[in-house]
């Protein structure tokens, strides 16, 4: 269908007073050759919208250029059932952001020039914009693979199946159930609920049965994932069940492989190995399950039991993190002893901090009420007693001295480690695993950036984000339960449901050809012109999500369903051959060049600001809303992510005569805020190499700068821009100015 552009300029909210709308209209119609331009006194009113809608039927308008207010408002007002729409932010940038234009003639002139340039950008963008065709593939699957048949995995599988999705569940053991099925009881999820304050049945049997008999769940027990090829919606997963391979077409994946116990052999300082009566919490659980809490040394009843917290956890020599469940697990286990030996039981928990968050505080109270004694202190020495049991010396912090106790069993509440393989994809050695090593990984991903999931810290593939805890760096693959972060059964159940939802969301989005978070719903995806490729591999290496594989010759192989649409590949490509239907190097380049740069003698500098649309652009917008004066010489072009900034744009800007270029993006480094993980970090790296280009052009590298901005930097942003303009102007005349 042929593109028919309609441009609508709103004259309300002071636009008409501040700007010469006639000239603006002429810029669009005459200069930019978009003949259909209309004005309206309040474009967002029902009448204004009606005017546009009439043009859809009478004029066949299918591409919209709305020159009015910020794209952060009235999104639903200007929704015409197509992504072919561009908003020109006249109000916030050229009116509200230029508060002195009403009184100052020069300022008014500057504001007018700004408004015109903004309109030019908009015109060029809509002209270059194509309607993105959603990615389609007849082979797309909505089946969800769950790896791991423990509590988390079963919950995720059942959760997705109950919502109407087919599930393939792979469990390496012969039976479902994982660790929880081997537990005696569970800590109550919410002990403050009526009648739920005590130990709870695990419910594992019922859950196993529900999963085994669920018509939508296909079960592979005694099986493992041998290889995962492809991309979300199109994964071909080879499942090895007892030596025979089956390939399943999978849409998205939940990894719920649980945890391992920290190796107690490393805990000699806590007495492990000193006596058979020093055991792990896991071994104790097994004893309780069998109903016989006895000394390992001689089989006599173990009525006096002490539990040592942070056994390996919160310890810089072992696990630096808190394993989160040990406090309540020990309380639970102390209750086993009391349950078995009643008034003869004598239990004590040696702790650092009691961690019973939320309503679990009631479980702490419950344990105390049943008689469990809590001792804040460090275990100093553990020795076997000749008559069985052990003698424990504790540096007692509350009694402020060393105390000795004799117990039948000393139980070490060992921490948990993720039962998953994760790697740092930025470490190249991870990319060159042997076939044997690859085969040992949980998913054995056929990804150019490695077979494993990227980790965050300590081997957990947890999300870095507070607001988006399920995000991983592998689209369509979500991790649930203690494989993601240390957590107990109740949290794991919730976590598994959440991960299942994300997996469902992924397959549904993919079925519509749409992106998932953070550009949820975006239908565009990168395409590339193979003949221009030099096999430099920058795109395959830099994609934060490992979306691009390589063929034998080093050509990139795009996987649209792995893609988050950040455009980092587009920014990386020196050949400028990667583009989106509605976002390309050419488009932004043309917009940059579309600015009307005044000759040097006008002393009106021009600064190009490439602003990340997630945080930096809203900050600029907010400054306008707050009526803060935005430097009138800046020309803002929003980008999807600084990762998508191609260096050629800087050359474009310089050759057009801009005095400087400023990149505004999110914080990078350890506490990065970039929603595409590495976009702003990569932009920084690329910029460090731009000096060479600039010197070739005989330009000072100080003309280009990357500044980290978050949305709250509204207050300092105008000053930052002013300073940059001043500094750049001080560098002297930009030699590429038009005459």
């Amino acid at each position: 269908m042929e593109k028919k552009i309609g441009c609508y300029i709103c004259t309300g909210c002071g636009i008409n007073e501040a700007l010469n709308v006639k000239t603006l209209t002429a810029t669009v119609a005459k200069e930019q050759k978009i003949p259909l331009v209309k004005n309206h006194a309040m474009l967002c009113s029902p009448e204004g919208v009606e005017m546009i809608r009439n043009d859809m039927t009478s004029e066949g308008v299918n591409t919209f250029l709305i020159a009015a207010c910020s794209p952060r408002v009235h999104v639903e007002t200007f929704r015409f059932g197509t992504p072919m729409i561009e908003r020109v932010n006249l109000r916030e940038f050229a009116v509200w952001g230029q508060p002195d234009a009403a009184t100052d003639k020069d300022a008014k002139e500057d504001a007018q020039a700004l408004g015109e340039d903004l309109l030019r950008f908009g015109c060029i963008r809509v002209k270059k914009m194509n309607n993105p065709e959603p990615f389609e593939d007849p082979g797309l699957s909505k089946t969800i693979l769950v790896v791991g048949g423990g509590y988390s995995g079963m919950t995720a599988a059942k959760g997705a199946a109950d919502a109407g999705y087919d599930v393939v569940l792979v469990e390496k053991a012969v039976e479902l159930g994982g660790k929880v099925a081997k537990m005696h009881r569970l800590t109550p999820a919410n002990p403050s609920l009526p009648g739920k304050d005590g130990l709870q049945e695990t419910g594992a049997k019922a859950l196993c049965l529900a999963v085994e008999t669920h018509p939508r769940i296909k079960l592979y027990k005694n099986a493992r994932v041998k290889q995962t090829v492809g991309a979300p919606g199109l994964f071909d997963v080879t499942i090895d069940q007892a030596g025979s391979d089956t390939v399943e077409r999978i849409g998205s994946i939940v990894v719920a492989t649980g945890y391992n116990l920290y190796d107690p052999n490393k805990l000699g300082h806590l007495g492990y190995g000193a006596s058979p009566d020093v055991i792990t919490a896991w071994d104790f659980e097994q004893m309780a399950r069998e109903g016989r809490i006895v000394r390992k040394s001689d089989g006599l009843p173990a009525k006096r039991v002490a539990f040592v917290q942070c056994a390996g956890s919160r310890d810089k020599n072992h696990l630096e993190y808190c394993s989160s469940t040990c406090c309540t697990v020990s309380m639970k286990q102390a209750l086993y002893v009391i349950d078995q030996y009643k008034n003869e039981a004598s239990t004590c928990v040696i702790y650092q901090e009691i961690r019973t968050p939320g309503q679990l505080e009631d479980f702490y109270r419950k344990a105390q009420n049943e008689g469990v004694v809590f001792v804040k202190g460090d275990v100093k020495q553990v020795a076997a007693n000749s008559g069985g049991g052990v003698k424990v010396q504790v540096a007692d912090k509350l009694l402020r001295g060393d105390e000795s106790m004799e117990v039948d069993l000393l139980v070490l509440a060992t921490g948990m480690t993720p039962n998953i393989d994760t790697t740092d994809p930025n470490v190249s050695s991870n990319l060159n695993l042997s076939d044997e090593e690859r085969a040992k990984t949980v998913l054995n991903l056929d990804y150019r950036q490695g077979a494993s999931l990227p980790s965050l810290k300590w081997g957990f593939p947890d999300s870095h984000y507070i607001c988006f805890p399920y995000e991983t760096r592998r689209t369509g693959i979500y991790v649930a339960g203690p494989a993601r972060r240390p957590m107990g059964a109740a949290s794991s159940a919730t976590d598994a449901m959440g991960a299942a939802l994300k997996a469902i969301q992924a397959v549904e989005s993919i079925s519509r050809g749409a992106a998932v978070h953070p550009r949820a719903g975006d239908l565009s995806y990168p395409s590339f012109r193979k003949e221009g490729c030099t096999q430099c591999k920058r795109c395959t290496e830099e994609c934060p999500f490992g979306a691009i594989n390589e063929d034998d010759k080093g050509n990139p192989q795009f996987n649209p369903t792995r893609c988050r649409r950040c455009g980092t590949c587009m920014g990386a490509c020196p050949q400028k051959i990667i583009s989106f239907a509605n976002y390309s190097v050419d488009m932004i380049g043309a917009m940059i060049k579309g600015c009307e740069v005044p000759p040097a003698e006008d002393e009106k500098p021009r600064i190009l600001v490439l602003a990340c649309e997630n945080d930096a652009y809203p900050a600029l917008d907010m400054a306008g809303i707050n009526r803060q004066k935005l430097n009138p010489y800046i020309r803002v072009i929003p980008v999807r992510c600084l990762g998508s900034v191609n260096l050629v744009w800087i050359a474009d800007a310089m050759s057009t005569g801009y005095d400087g270029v400023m990149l505004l993006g999110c914080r990078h480094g350890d506490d990065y805020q970039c929603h595409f993980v590495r976009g702003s970090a990569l932009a920084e790296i690329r910029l460090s190499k731009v000096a060479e280009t600039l010197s070739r052009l005989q330009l000072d590298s100080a003309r280009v700068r990357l500044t980290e901005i978050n949305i709250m930097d509204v207050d300092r942003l105008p000053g930052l821009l002013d300073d940059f303009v001043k500094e750049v102007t001080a560098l002297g005349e930009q030699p590429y100015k038009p005459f």
Partner: protein
Amino acid sequence: MAYDLSFAKEVYKTSEVGYWIKMCMQCGVCAGSCPLGPHWEHSPRQLFQLVRAGKMEEVLKSDSMWMCTSCYNCIVRCPRGLPITHIVHGLARLAVEKGMADPKQPTRRFAVEVFWDNITSTGRVGEAGLTMKLYFIDGIGPGIQRGLEMKNQALGMLKTKRLNPIPFRSKIKGFAGFKAMLDKAFELEAKKESNA
């Protein structure tokens, strides 16, 4: 050996509301609340942890319980709802019963040797008798000395008709029943203890 729970269990069972000791989370609010803080050796929370650690001697020989003025600051502030004042009173009583309280502890002497006798011998406090007995608890000599120290206070009270100079007072009318009631109460209390 610490943290042998036999003493703790005895306290839980026999001492007045002693079972509440289980619930202490060692936050220190009681210690910070007590007006006698500068004087005692063990704060309530420390006593409780010592009970749980099985340190019977340290607890019952401590003079800390005897410092309690029943101001109830600890009770109203305890985040775990422990009736601390009563627990401390209970421990003091336990120390008396087990004969472990320091015989020289002045408040113990006043409470056990003077006050209780004073009120139970007639049914009501006889203030003059109470004061005299307290002063002369160590015999005539120290008694006269204490009396002299407090002479002005006593004189002031006498002058304002707030001290009856005659130590003798009559019993309440229902004294026989009163006595029988107390005897029964002691008997019931002892039964609770022997059940431990």
